[in-house]
């Protein structure tokens, strides 16, 4: 079974709007990561947040982590058409495994 589950499964917004995706997971983690996948391509790492961190920023990305609720959110501010992709959260409790959710398909309309 998947460790992480993203919500919503699909999200469609206008260019310039903010996009928020959520991830819930089931067990303890060392860190949580977000990845992006453009159609037909491999996944690209966006940001990693450790279990002792609550918020992290990288450019237009903001990630929060609530370990008490076992949830994380990814906020993309001022979305662009080029942000259209699938976004996945991944949880890690050791270097031996990295478990992915089923993803959120984001469509940014120009």
């Amino acid at each position, binding site marked *: *079974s*998947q460790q992480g589950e993203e919500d919503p499964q699909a999200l469609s917004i206008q260019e310039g709007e903010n996009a928020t995706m959520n991830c819930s997971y089931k067990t303890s983690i*060392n*860190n949580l*990561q977000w*990845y992006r996948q453009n159609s*037909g*391509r*491999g*996944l*690209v*790492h966006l940001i*990693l947040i450790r279990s002792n961190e609550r918020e992290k920023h990288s450019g237009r990305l903001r990630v929060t982590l609530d370990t008490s609720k076992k949830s994380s959110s990814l906020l993309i501010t001022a979305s662009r058409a080029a942000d259209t992709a699938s976004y*996945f959260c*991944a949880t*890690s409790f*050791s*270097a*031996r*495994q*990295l*478990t*992915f*959710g*089923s*993803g959120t398909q984001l469509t940014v309309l120009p």
Partner: protein
Amino acid sequence: DAGITQSPRHKVTETGTPVTLRCHQTENHRYMYWYRQDPGHGLRLIHYSYGVKDTDKGEVSDGYSVSRSKTEDFLLTLESATSSQTSVYFCAIRSGDTEAFFGQGTRLTVV
């Protein structure tokens, strides 16, 4: 881009035949992973390796075997391909409990 290459990129094979996919890295990372990606399921872990000749099963390992005789190569073998193994296969590498780098994927079709 991280030095990780998958081969072949596309393959069509017949049911019942063995198939081997190759993942090659130039980063000297200890950990290597094979995932499959199917619509509605995201990425599911098939097998992973934590060193030369050290491998372990993931979530969906039935029908698959792996080998890692060198740090740089991680092979995934479908012992007798079935139509349910039609999928996109991704290899990933990590140096530790950190970010992963992915290959471009292998699209496998079993007919």
